[in-house]
C-alpha cells in the first residue's frame, strides 16, 4: 500500500496557495465584481482552514455571514451602481508602486520573521485534534463569559441596521 501523503500538510498548502492567489486577485483585478468573487474565494479557503483548526462553527458562520451575507451585499451594491471597472487614473501612483510595494514586502518579511522567531515550536495542526469549536462550547461561552459583549454587539447591529436604512433611503425631494 502506498503511504498516503499527509493530508493536513497538503490541504494547508493547497488552501493557503488558493487564498493567497485569491487575495492577489482581489487587489489586482480591474473589475470590482472580480475582486468581490476573489474575496469570496479567500473566505471559502479560510472557512476550510478554520475547519482544520477545529473551529467548525466559525467555518459555517464564515460562509453564512461573510460569504453569504456581507459579500452578497457587496456584489449587490456593485451591480446596483454598475460600478464597472476602474478608470485609468490621470495621476499615476509611482509612490505606491515603487515605494509602497517593496516596503510592504519588507514589512511582511519582518512579520514572518517575527512570528517564526517568537513561536519556534508552536503546536502542529492536525485535523480533529482540537474539537472545542462546535456550536455548543462556543454558544456556552458566548452566553456566559461574553454575554455583555454579545448584547452590546447586538445593539450595535441594530444601530447599524437603522443607520444603513436612514443613509440609503432615497431623499425625498
Amino acid at each position, binding site marked *: 500500500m502506498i503511504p498516503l501523503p499527509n493530508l493536513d500538510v497538503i490541504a494547508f498548502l493547497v488552501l493557503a496557495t488558493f487564498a493567497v492567489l485569491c487575495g492577489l486577485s482581489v487587489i489586482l483585478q480591474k473589475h470590482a465584481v472580480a475582486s468581490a468573487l476573489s474575496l469570496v474565494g479567500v473566505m471559502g479557503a479560510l472557512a476550510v482552514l478554520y475547519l482544520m483548526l477545529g473551529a467548525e462553527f466559525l467555518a459555517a458562520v464564515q460562509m453564512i455571514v461573510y460569504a453569504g451575507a456581507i459579500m452578497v451585499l457587496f456584489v449587490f451594491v456593485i451591480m446596483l451602481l454598475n460600478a464597472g471597472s476602474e478608470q485609468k487614473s490621470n495621476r499615476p501612483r509611482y*509612490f*505606491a508602486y515603487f515605494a*509602497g510595494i517593496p*516596503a*510592504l514586502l*519588507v*514589512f511582511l518579511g*519582518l*512579520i514572518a*520573521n*517575527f512570528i517564526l*522567531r517568537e513561536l519556534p515550536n508552536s503546536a502542529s495542526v492536525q485535523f480533529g485534534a482540537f474539537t472545542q469549536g462546535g456550536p455548543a462550547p462556543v454558544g456556552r461561552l458566548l452566553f456566559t463569559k461574553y454575554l455583555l459583549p454579545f448584547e452590546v454587539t447586538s445593539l450595535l447591529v441594530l444601530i447599524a441596521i437603522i443607520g444603513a436604512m436612514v443613509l440609503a433611503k432615497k431623499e425625498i425631494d
Partner: protein
Amino acid sequence: MTESQSLWLIPILPLIGAAINGLLGRRLPKAAVSAIAILTVLGSFLWVIKTISALGDLAAPHSEHYFTWIQSGTLDIGVDFMIDRLTRVMLLIVTGVGLLIHIYATGYMDHEEGFARFFSYLNLFMFFMLTLVLAKNFLLVFVGWEGVGLASYLLIGFYLKEKFAGDAGKKAFIVNRIGDFGFSLAMFLIVLTFGSLDFTKVFAAAAKMPVEAHAGILTAIALLIFVGACGKSAQMPLYVWLPDAMAGPTPVSALIHAATMVTAGVYIVARASVIFDRAPLALDVVSYIGLLTAVVAATIGMTQYDIKKVFAYSTVSQLGFMFMACGAKAYSSGIFHVATHAFFKAVLFLGAGSVIHALHGEQDMRNMGGLRSKTPQTFITLCLAWLAISGVPPFSGAMSKDEILIAVHGKSEWMFWVGVVTAGLTAFYVSRAMFMTFFGEYRGKAHPHESPFSMTGPLWVLGLLSAVGGYLVRDLVHSIGPEVAEHGDHSSLGFIVVAAGLIGIALAAFVYLFSRGLSQSFAKALGPVYHLVYDKYRVDEFYDAVIVRPIQAGSTWVLWRGVDHYLVDGLVQGIGNTIGNVGVVLRRAQGGHIPSYATWIAVGAAAALVGFQILSGGAR
C-alpha cells in the same frame, strides 16, 4: 438589631411620589397628582407612627445599616438611619405638618401653573428633610441638608415668570453656601479629630474627651456647625435670605421656611449637644446670636406691611429664641419650641395664605381689614395661633417660650430681660398683623371669600394643635433630656413672660384698634429710627456695599479686565496663534485623500514593528 429594616421606607415614599409627579405629572390629571403627593406623605406619616409605636420608649437608639457608601482608609461612611427620641419628635413634626400642608397646598395651588412640578418639588423636599432627620452620620445629614436647600431653591423660584422669585431663590442658595461651607469645615474637623462621622462614635468619643485639653478643637467644631446652622436657620448675620424666600408659594413658606427646614439648624445643634456642652464659648456665641436675631427680627417685624414678611421676620425671631434655648443648654426646650412653633407658625402662614388666596393675591396689610366676618374659619384658627405665639397660657407657645426664658434666666439675668421684652414685641407685631387684617374696615378692592375645605381643614387641625399641642408633645420632647428646670421654682418668671405677652397685645390693641393714627405719629416722632427699622436696618444694602460690590469691582477690574484679558487671553491666544501658524504648515499633509492617510498609518505600523524587532531582537 433584630428589628426588620424598615426606616428606609419613610423617606423613600415621598421620593417615589416626587419621581412619579416629576416624570409623568404633566400628563396626569390634577386629582391624580394631588393623590400621589398626599398619599405618599400620608404613607410615610403612618409608617412613622407605626415604627415609633413599635419601638417603645426608645431608651436606646434604633439604627439600621443599609450599605457602605464611602470607604477610604479608616474612614467608613455607611448609609445608616437612626431613630432616637430627638428624631422621633422631628419625624412626627415633619411628616405630620408636612402632610397637612400638602393637603392645604392642593387647594391653594389649584389655579396655578406647574401643579405637578410643585408637588414633585414638595415631595422631593420631604424626602431630603426626612433623610436629614433620619441620618446617622454627618455626611448623610449633609446630603439631606443640601437636598432641602435645593428643594427650597426650586420652590422659592417656583414662579418662573417672576424675576424677583428667581432672585430670591438665588439669594437663598448663595447665602446658604456660606453656612454649608462652615458645616463642611466642621465635618472635616470631625473626621480629623474623631476619625469618623458616625453620630454614635463621634459623640461617644467626644463625651470621653477631657474638656480642658480639647476645648479648642471642640469649640471650633461647635462654632463651625453653628455657622452652618446660622445659614440654614436664618440667624444673624445670614438671615437675609429668609424674608425674601417669601417669594415662593405660601405653603412652601409654611412648610419649609417656618415649620421644618429652617429648624434643621436647631436640630443639628441639639443633635451635636454633646459637643456644644463641652464648648462653653460656642454656647455663649449661640446665645448671643440667638438673642440678637430675636430682637432685631422682632423690631423689623413691627414695621412691615406685607403680611408674609411680618411672619417671616417672626420666624427669624422665633428661631432666635430656639437658639437661645440651645445656648442655655436647654436643648429639649429648643426642640419643644421647634414643635410648637411648627404648629402655630404653620397656621399663621397658612392663614395668611388663606387670606391672600381670598384676596386674590393681595399681600399688603394696608389693603386688608375687617376680614373677620368674610373669612370666619381662617380668622378663628389664626386667633388660636396668635394667642399661642403671643405666649398666652394655656396655648402651646406659652409653654415652650416660658421654658426657654426660664432656662435663659438660669444662664444670665440680662438676657432674660431682653428676651422678655422681645416676647412682648412678638406679641405686639403679631397682634398688629391680626388687627390690621381682621378688624376694622375692609380697605381693599377685591371680593374676599372663604377658602375651600382642603385649606381650612388643615388650618383647623393645626389651629387645634397650636392650642393644645403643647401638652401632646411635652413629654415626648422632654424625654430627649437633659432635664429641664421645673416650673415650680420659677413661677414668678413665668408670670413675667406671660405678662409681657399680654402687654404686647394690649399695646397693639390700643395703637391699632382704638387710636388710629397713633402709629403714624409714633413713626413720625421716631423718624429716622423708624425708617431705619422699616428698611430692615439696611442690612441688605450694607451687605451690598461691603461684600457684593467690592467683589464685583474686583472681579471686573482686576480679574476680568486685568488677569483674564491680558494675562490669560494673551497666553491662550498666543498659544493658539502659534499653533495656528504651525498648522498652516502642517495642513499640507492633510490632503483629505484617504489613501495617503492609510499610507501614513501603514508606515507607522511598519515603523513600530521594525522598532519592536530591533528592541526585542537583542534579547534573543
